[in-house]
Structure formats: C-alpha cells, structure tokens
C-alpha cells in the first residue's frame, strides 16, 4: 500500500467525520460518539475494500455492509453521500420529518442494505446474506460493524455460534470496541470481557487492531480475504468520539446536542486531523 493511498483514505475518514457533524447540526441531538469511533473503519470499507458501484446499487455481486450498531449510521450516511448515492445536501436533513435519512438505517435510503437500530440483529442478517451468496454461487462478501455494547445482546452469540457451524468465510464482523455504551462503560453490568477469546472459542479467525490506524485496518481487511472455512472477527480498539476533543471517551456525547460553540470547536478539531 503506497503512502498516497493511505493519505487518501485518511482524507476520506476526515470527510466522513465532517459529514457526521453535518448530520448532527447545532442544537439537535445526534449519535456523535459511536459514529466518530467507527469513521476510520467505514472509510476503509467504502473507499478501499468493498466492491460497490453507486451507479448500480442493486448489483447482485456487490459487497454488503451492515451497520448493526445502527445509531452510528451518520458515518455511513456521510460515506454514501461522498460516493454519490445521494446528494451531500441531504445530510443536514438527517432525522427531519420526511427525510430519506432516518435516525437509524432503513433500506429506503439508497445504499443501506438492512434495517437496524434495535441492537443485536445485524450479524444474523449478515449470515442470511452470506448464505444467499453461497446458494447463488456469488463471490460477494458481507461486512458487519458491531458495537461492543451491542455484544451484550444474546442474539449476537446465537449468530456467532451458527456462522461457525456453517463455516461462513464470506462473513466479516468488525467490533467497534470503544469501551463505552450510552450511559456506562462496557465492562460494567453484564459487561463484555475477553471479546477476542469469545470469538476464538467459537472458531472465528480473530484479530485485534487499532481501529483508528488506517494501515492496520486495510492490512487486516486484506487478510480476511485469505481465510478459508471460518468467519472473521476484527476487534478494533477505538475511542468514542474520536476526532472531537471534548467528546473523546465521554459518553455524554453518545447522543447529545452540540451548542454552536461546541459545533465550531468540533469542526476545528476535525480540520486539524493530520492526513
């Protein structure tokens, strides 16, 4: 991977972060924290890894991406707008009445592959798509971003066990491991410990990476292509709110409004990210 390509992907991640802010706006609530923590992963998928064509969004051979932690969809909206699935002017209408950009992903939005939002369901939907690829002898791959808080849901582990039984090597789960839920750290309550060990115990080929390091992200995404007979899990260590100084590691900005001052500060913070 040459440096220019990495630089370009970092620039795309920056555009995604700007788009997230655009979606949230001033004095309106929006899921900033989890969208920002996923931004680099989303950039690597949409602008490096996945085979998709905005001119042919229904291409049966396209790779599929499911944002199972649906509240972070703002990062996906920003990426889809950058790719031309819809106009960038739509971003500011996110969550407005009648908008094509709903608070959580819906397939009525161009480029969105599944309805998510109630947590725990996206990996199972991904299994269905991966099975269909096998039945139809198609080579597309299915990428699912999960939240670490979402791993509390029992359905995730139903899906993890089942995908291994069917040896779904066209299914890649990426855990956005930002260590914070909406109101508490993920190691509290029925918290998630040893996430990697759980995936490995279920027979998944598993990696742990820095989810904000573009070189690491694309290297591991390429490695998943070579895995045979088992599904892949990438535990991406991330920072909730990454890129916005006052929101980093701060669950107050899981889904909060930004004052005008905070909004401008966030814009400056993102502008200062080194590509």
């Amino acid at each position: 991977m040459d440096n220019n390509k990495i630089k370009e992907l970092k620039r795309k991640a920056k555009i995604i972060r700007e788009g997230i802010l655009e979606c949230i706006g001033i004095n309106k609530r929006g899921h900033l924290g989890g969208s920002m923590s996923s931004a680099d992963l989303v950039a690597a998928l949409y602008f490096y890894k996945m085979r998709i064509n905005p001119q042919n969004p229904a291409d049966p051979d396209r790779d599929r991406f499911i944002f199972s932690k649906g509240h972070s969809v703002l990062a996906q909206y920003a990426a889809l707008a950058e790719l031309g699935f819809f106009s960038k002017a739509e971003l500011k209408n996110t969550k407005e009445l009648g908008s094509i950009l709903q608070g959580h992903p819906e397939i009525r939005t161009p480029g969105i592959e599944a309805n998510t939002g109630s947590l725990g369901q996206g990996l199972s939907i991904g299994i269905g798509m991966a099975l269909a690829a096998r039945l139809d002898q198609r080579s597309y791959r299915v990428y699912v971003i999960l939240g670490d808080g979402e791993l509390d849901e029992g359905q995730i582990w139903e899906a993890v066990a089942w995908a291994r039984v069917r040896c779904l090597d066209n299914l890649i789960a990426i855990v956005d491991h930002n260590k914070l839920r909406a109101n508490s750290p993920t190691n509290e309550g029925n918290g998630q410990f040893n996430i990697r060990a759980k995936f490995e115990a279920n027979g998944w080929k598993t990696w742990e990476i820095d989810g904000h390091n573009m070189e690491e992200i694309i290297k591991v995404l390429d490695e998943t292509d070579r895995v045979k007979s088992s599904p892949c899990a990438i535990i991406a260590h991330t920072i909730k709110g990454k890129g916005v100084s006052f929101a980093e590691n701060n669950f107050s900005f899981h889904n909060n409004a930004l004052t005008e001052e905070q909004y401008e500060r966030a814009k400056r913070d993102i502008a200062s990210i080194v590509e």
Partner: protein
Amino acid sequence: MKIEDLREAYGRELLAVARVDDRVVALDADLCGSTMTKYLKEEIPERFFEMGIAEANMISVAAGLALSGKIPFVNSFAVFAAGQPYNQIRQGVALPNLKVRIVGSSSGLSDAGDGATHQSIEDIAIMRAIPNMTIVVPVDAEETRKVVCLSLHHGGPMYIRISRSPLPVLTDSQTVFKIGKMTLMAEGSDVTIFATGIMVHKALEAREILIKQGINIRVVNVSTIKPLYQEEVLKYIGDVKGIVTAEEHSIIGGLGSAIAEALCEKMIPIKMVGIEDQFGQSASTHEELLKYYKLTPEAIIEKVKALLNRD
C-alpha cells in the same frame, strides 16, 4: 367427513413449491419433525437450514436471505415463532416489508399436553399490531396448500398459523382462496358467524343444531385475519340481527377485535367466542381444552341465542 393433517399438508406443499422455485428456503428451530419441514430437508438439504433453538437469530437470518432475493419460510411452534423474536420480526422483517413467511405451527391450544408455555393464544394479537404484516389462518389442509403456494406471489411479510390437530376438510380445490377475501361456508339470515381456523368447523356444527330449532345462521370463514377489509365484512351482515365471532385465540386482539374495529361505527351487536383473558394449561386432548375454554358449538349457540333474545 374427511379429516386431514394441516402440518403434513404444509410440509408436502412446501417441498412442492421448493421443487419448482429455487428462491424458496426453509429455516427451522429444531422442530422439523413436527413442523414437517423435514420433507424439504430430506429432498433439498442445501435449502434447509437447521438454526438450532435460537429463534431471534433465525428470523434475522431469514431477513438477510429475503434481502438477497430468497423466499424464506421460518418455522417453529406459533408461540415461539411469533413470540420469542418479536422485535426481530418488527424491525428486520416488517419495517423493510420483506417477503418472509413466518409459519407458526402447533398453534392455539393444539399442543394440548405441553400446557400454557407451548400454547399460542395471543400470537395473532402480536402479529396484527405490526404494520405490513399479513396474517392467514388456514381452515383446513386444502387451504393450507393454497396459502403456501399463493404466498410466493404475495409481497411483504406473512404469518401463517397452523394447527397441530388434523381438521375436517371443509373446502376443495375449486374453492377460491384470495388474501383478504372471506369465504361463505353456509347461508343463514338470523346471525352471521365470523369464524377462523378450527372454529369454522365448530360454527358449522352449531348451525346444524340451530336449524332444528328454527334459527338460521350464516357461517363465514375468515382465513385472512389481516388485512381485514370493512367492505368484505359488510357483504355478510346486511340482513342479520347480530354477529358472533369465533376463534381459538384470546378475545383480546384477535379476529373478534378485528371485526369489532371494522364495525365500530355500525350499530350492530357483536358477541365473541374466544379464550377469555387467561392462559391455557395441559390436558390429554385438544378437544378437552376446547371444551374447558368454551370454544364449542354450544358456546356459539349460546351467543347466537343471546343476540336473538332466545333461550
């Protein structure tokens, strides 16, 4: 009267449609020997998915298959198929309006021995509340075959409720079955009975008894509980003095509620035969439970006479 097993009819027809349409796939939660998806499993194993006892995952996997152009039939006992994965059905299947068929087997009180935990008496209410959902309760094996076949050409999600008990065959290959249409089973002009599932047969029995007493009731089979069109209901009530609804389901949220909602602005008395607001229990036979919970011809007769002020 010929008796036929609906589960058997379902399993055979599912295989038949799968043979000719390779979009058809079946998912089952460790009950294929009871839901009868075993026939598809045996002949077309690559399109049968044993999901284990994990209904939430099963529904969402079906959503993914439907998003990829397949027509998944998702199978379990009705109480698990409709109850366990409510939110998976709501968000993953109904909201995006996907062509997933949720087949609730051993419905109502028909799993007599297993008791309240396995008896589905509120599944229709749950499914009815979800936008985009179509709900079909086949009256017999013949209609079961028609529903399976027709479901391939019907858009959006569908809940199909299948009894564990073999039931009298009340329709034949000539009987027209359409989603949203009711079927006139027998004429009468004193009271109209809107019945569904096993209660259609009970209503016809009630009719035979009432004829001897000079009372004529009309029996209408409502296999499509949703959508339930007001104009369809109005077709059958113009001349009668009242209506009785009959269902093997809670009186809250089922057929009775649907008819009452459709007619709430019409001045016509309605009485309901169904399970009062309570759970089922174990018994040695289905019939024993139907009697205990007053899902009988006698219960229908009592309501009819009350409407006509006769004893």
